[in-house]
């Protein structure tokens, strides 16, 4: 096995496939995913529901076998190397459960007894702001509180690698920001984080690197800026006919739902040209909006299947 890469990968995936069922009803949820999570970074796996995020993570977590492909977590196979990997990895499932008849403190004590190097229960209660709920039965907790207990378990073993499947789904905005601070803190302490989310804001705020998963494949990877690059800026206004097609820098002009959208590679030039044309012809551009390419627009166009930029399938090889 070669470890000559300049930056070490905490997670390395090549050609991962995962198929559910057999025969005619078989469904391939993961269709050849390549993924590298650099040690000490936060990587966000972004995708709509059903894109294959959880199916991918379950293989990394060692909970499900890969149908095909190679997976290395901390340099080991997640199934064969289970005993060696588990003490070094913390996992937060998208959905999980606890025995309702135990209190928060008891739940954390139970979990800590299963760990090689547990952090003290009281420390975890404080870290996740659960001290005042320590004596409460799990059944009496709110969804957000249960999620925090879950996170306390994930982090209790001081993991080097943290895998979080939609850590903030269902949380109120305040709790969400608290989780963001916690996750950033993990990286600052040297841990590696791989998380999935369908919140773009979350990915943009937290992640050093994004991997956009769509229909079981990674269709785009990079920093948020890199991903938006090559994607057109847009100018929108209430529908006006007769906008000149040869507007400076414009790629194309669309008329849809009573709005006109200009896609452009040169936002400032196109906008100047457009305003100039409008002034000359005395045209009012109602509801005028001009937007640089954002992660959101990239993401939405991928989710719609109308991604104007070719998927950079080769990027993994070039990198």
């Amino acid at each position, binding site marked *: 096995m070669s470890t000559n890469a300049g930056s070490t990968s905490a997670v390395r995936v090549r050609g991962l496939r995962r198929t559910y069922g057999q025969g005619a009803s078989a469904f391939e949820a993961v269709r050849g995913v390549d993924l590298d999570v650099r040690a000490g970074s936060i990587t966000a796996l972004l995708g709509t529901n059903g894109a294959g995020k959880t199916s991918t993570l379950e293989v990394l*977590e060692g*909970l499900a076998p890969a149908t095909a492909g190679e997976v290395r977590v901390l340099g080991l196979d997640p199934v064969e190397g289970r*005993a*060696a990997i*588990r*003490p070094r990895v913390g*996992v937060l*499932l998208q*959905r*999980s*459960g*606890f*025995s*309702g*008849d*135990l209190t928060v403190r*008891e739940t954390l004590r*139970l*979990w800590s*007894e*299963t*760990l*090689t190097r547990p952090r003290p229960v009281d420390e975890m209660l404080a870290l996740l702001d659960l001290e005042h709920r320590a004596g409460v039965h799990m059944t009496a907790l709110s969804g957000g509180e249960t999620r925090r207990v*879950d996170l306390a*378990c994930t982090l209790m*073993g001081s993991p080097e690698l943290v895998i979080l499947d939609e850590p903030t789904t269902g949380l109120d905005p305040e709790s969400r920001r608290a989780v963001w601070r916690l996750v950033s803190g993990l990286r600052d302490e040297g841990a590696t984080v791989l998380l999935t989310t369908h919140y773009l804001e979350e990915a943009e705020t937290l992640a050093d690197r994004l991997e956009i998963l769509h229909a079981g494949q990674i269709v785009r990877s990079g920093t948020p800026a890199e991903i938006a690059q090559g994607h057109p800026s847009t100018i929108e206004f209430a529908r006006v006919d007769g906008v000149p097609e040869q507007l400076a820098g414009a790629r194309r002009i669309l008329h849809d739902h009573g709005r006109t959208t200009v896609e452009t590679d040169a936002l400032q030039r196109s906008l100047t040209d457009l305003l100039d044309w409008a002034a000359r012809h005395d045209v009012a551009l109602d509801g005028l909006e001009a937007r640089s390419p954002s992660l959101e627009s990239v993401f939405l166009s991928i989710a719609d299947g109308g991604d104007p930029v070719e998927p950079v399938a080769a990027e993994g090889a070039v990198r």
Partner: protein
Amino acid sequence: MTDRISLRRTLGLARWNAVLLTRNRLAAVYAVVLPLLPLLLLLAGDRGAEATGAGAVVTMFLVTALFPVYYNVLAQFVNRRDELVLKRMRTGEVRDAELVASIALPGVLCALVLTALAVPIAAALGQSLPVNPLLYAVTAVLAVVMFTAFAYWTAAWTRSAEAAQLTSMPIIVLASLGPLASSMPEMSERLRDALSLTPGAAMADLVRIGWFGLDGPGADQATLSFAETWGQAGQPLAVMAVWAWIAITLARRSMRWEPRG
């Protein structure tokens, strides 16, 4: 960095499972009180008669195998699986075998203590002590292993804790056939031979032989010596061992850790 099963983790988890069992009143009553009730049969009939003793202890064995062990383990496992507790645990350092063992342990321990307690209770009520205590203990251990495995096998095709009330019926009936038949003296030889191959009948035979030294289904007087009990125990021991092996094989093959989507 050991790949072995951790006794510390298993016992720790078993203790929490015991705590959970005590917090569920109904489950606790089923596990502890119910199995002791058959011993009340010792108060009926001739005080100290082997036939009375055998009837009471065989019934106690059956109830112990079915409630603290079989039904309890089945319900606990299915419940934890439904609630995704098992899935959560499996992301951590706990090994699958440790989860399996720790869920079974409280019921298993309860059953072993009850079968041991039956000896002084029966003695106090006029019964003689077991002729072959070792055989009696082996019977208890085999029964516990077999019914634990049956519980995990049943869990594989049980959708929910409620459904367990139904899915547990085949094993409960299979286990009860033998002990029920033993209370019917008039029965054709062939039917009795066939029934003796069921797990419950083998368990009942072993109790009758090991504790009471009863020779054959119709016997009501202790005639077997310690040495003779081993000879008589051969077939029922083999029957129980085969059932235990079948149950373990089925359970291992069909283990399911997550609720069906």
